[in-house]
């Protein structure tokens, strides 16, 4: 009997682990990490097909993460969020803000009163994307003349004239600040890059590239952050660093349901939010398709010229 109870409790525990790893991830506002994708594709696919599957409307949370408000209950207000979303959609009707992720390569043109020709174009890799609502912003990094340059743009800034995705892909990590301490070739991108067009409906590819760090000193303690996109970190670590990394580890945090709950918007509220903006987002998609068709017709002319 005791054995049976122990066994059943074990089963419950393992189910809980499974549930936390898979299901809580699904409704998280944070971008999915790659490890889960690669490992679980074969396992989860048949299970999801049987029934439990997030509605299609919830998939917007990856492409439009800034439409979800800050989960801190002190700052929530339904009316404010509604007005904010309307303003965001109004801005998106004026300018096509494409889908992009941390690790994608973007070209941003802004109007700048001090620049020659009153506009400025910058190309770089997106190393961070954060903020909710109209405060949403992203940071681009590039190396120009052996000098690393980072520019932070507000996503809804009306001085932005054009946002173009040159290469749509994800990287192995949520934030790529370690490019600041890695060799410059990993964050160098030519300004005359041609946009790479993915086939329609294809999943966003994940670039499994691992960068090489420069020797110390570093800006942050990269070894403590469990980064997957660094290949040679071990050769710079001393015994002291390894010991402290072990001491600082928090392996229990992935089981902290409450922490996960506080970081995310509940599924019921998400469905409300996405239902509110669904129609207008679909209109934006249609407009984008129309303009992309136009682009395919015009592109041969430019090549000939």
């Amino acid at each position, binding site marked *: 009997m005791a054995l049976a109870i122990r066994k059943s409790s074990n089963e419950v525990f393992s189910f809980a682990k499974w549930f936390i790893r898979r299901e809580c991830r699904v409704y998280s506002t944070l971008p999915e990490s790659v490890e889960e994708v690669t490992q679980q594709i074969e396992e989860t696919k048949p299970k999801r097909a049987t029934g439990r599957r997030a509605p299609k409307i919830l998939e917007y949370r990856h492409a439009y993460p800034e439409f979800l408000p800050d989960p801190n209950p002190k700052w929530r207000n339904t009316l*404010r969020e509604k007005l904010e979303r309307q303003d*965001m959609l*109004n801005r998106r009707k004026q*300018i096509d803000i494409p889908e992009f992720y941390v690790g994608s390569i973007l070209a941003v043109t802004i*109007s700048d*009163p001090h620049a020659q020709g009153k506009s400025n174009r910058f190309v770089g890799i997106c190393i961070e994307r954060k903020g909710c609502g109209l405060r949403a912003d992203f940071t681009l990094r590039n190396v120009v003349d052996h000098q690393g340059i980072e520019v932070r743009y507000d996503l809804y800034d*009306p001085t932005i004239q054009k946002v173009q995705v040159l290469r749509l892909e994800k990287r192995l990590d949520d934030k790529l600040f370690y490019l600041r301490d890695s060799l410059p070739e990993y964050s160098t991108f030519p300004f005359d890059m041609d946009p790479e067009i993915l086939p329609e409906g294809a999943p966003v590819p994940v670039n499994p590239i691992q960068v090489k760090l420069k020797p110390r000193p570093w800006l942050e303690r990269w070894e403590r952050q469990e980064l997957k996109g660094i290949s040679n970190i071990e050769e710079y670590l001393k015994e002291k660093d390894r010991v402290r990394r072990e001491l600082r580890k928090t392996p229990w945090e992935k089981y902290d349901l409450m922490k996960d709950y506080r970081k995310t918007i509940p599924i019921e509220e998400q469905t409300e939010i996405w239902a509110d903006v669904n129609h207008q987002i679909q209109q934006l998609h249609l407009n984008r398709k129309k303009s992309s068709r136009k682009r395919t017709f015009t592109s041969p002319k430019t090549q000939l010229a």
Partner: protein
Amino acid sequence: MATSNIKLLCLNISKMRIGSFIINRSHSMKPRYRPPYWYEQKERVITEDFLTKDNEDFLQEILQDRLQKLPTQDSPLILDQVDQTVQWNQYTRRTGLIARKIGNYPMWTKDGKRMLTTLLQVNDNHVIKYIPPDEFNPMIIKNKKWKENKRLGCLLVGSENIDPSMVTKQYCGLFNTIGMLPKRHLYRFMVSPESALPPGTPLFATHFRVGDHIDVRAKTIDRGFQGVMKRWGFKGMPASHGVTKTHRRPGNIGSGGEKARVWPGTKMPGHMGNRWRVLRGVKILRIDTKYNVLWTLGVAIPGETGATCYLYDTVLPLKKHKSSPPFPTHGTKEDLPPEFYDEIVHRFEQPSITFEED
């Protein structure tokens, strides 16, 4: 004879009053604070009423009925009745509004500069009562000449309808007399008699205009008992170099000699926040007429998100109204554009900002 004399003496002694010897301290003692006489106790002890499910549903039904009727009721402010001959001048005091702070978000100016705005929602504001200057007799008056002048009346304004069963009967009575549901917030505004409004008049966000400056009175965020570094911005003391146990302490609080004591008003640890503060001269950038929301410049309005604040016309001499605002208030809500914008604000539905070459 002697006894009668003694009796007479006793009578005289008993008649002697000692009241004149008592030091009259009324000039130094403040009168005890009592709630103003127009106010009734609001909070009710919630008791179990043992209602059946049907009765509870019935009460809810009545409440919903009354709530639905409220917006359809015509405004009793008929502009013909209001004296049109009285014009606004710079000495008139209009009523204010009760608003709720609902958050901050950025907006951009037409020359591409980012500015943070605070959103204030004016929710179901109605005039509840007007007390003319002669009848208004408050308990505590700071300015003694005020009583002699008596030029301002008292206008009660309420905001946010609530369930009548959650408050006392006498509090509901304040609102029943004008056929309204009880309000969550009830506040008095001192107004000049010509800007008095009849009870039941709705007040909207359009009471103010875009580009006007307002004063906002609200309670600051309650931070509890705080040390001297957070409360007064002291530097504290060094973290190292042999300093022990005094990293966040104030240090010296007085000098010796003649001043060998702690002087009144010395900045010390204590309770921080939860105080009434007025932020003066806040510019209105945008007004939503459908939801009655004001966008104001800056994030310095006291209180956290959801705090109640009171909005007045500003008293700053350079930022006062130059021309007549909606007087006594903006009456009708029909035929208004959905939104008003200040001229410096870039609207999100406008095309991107470009700068022209000289």
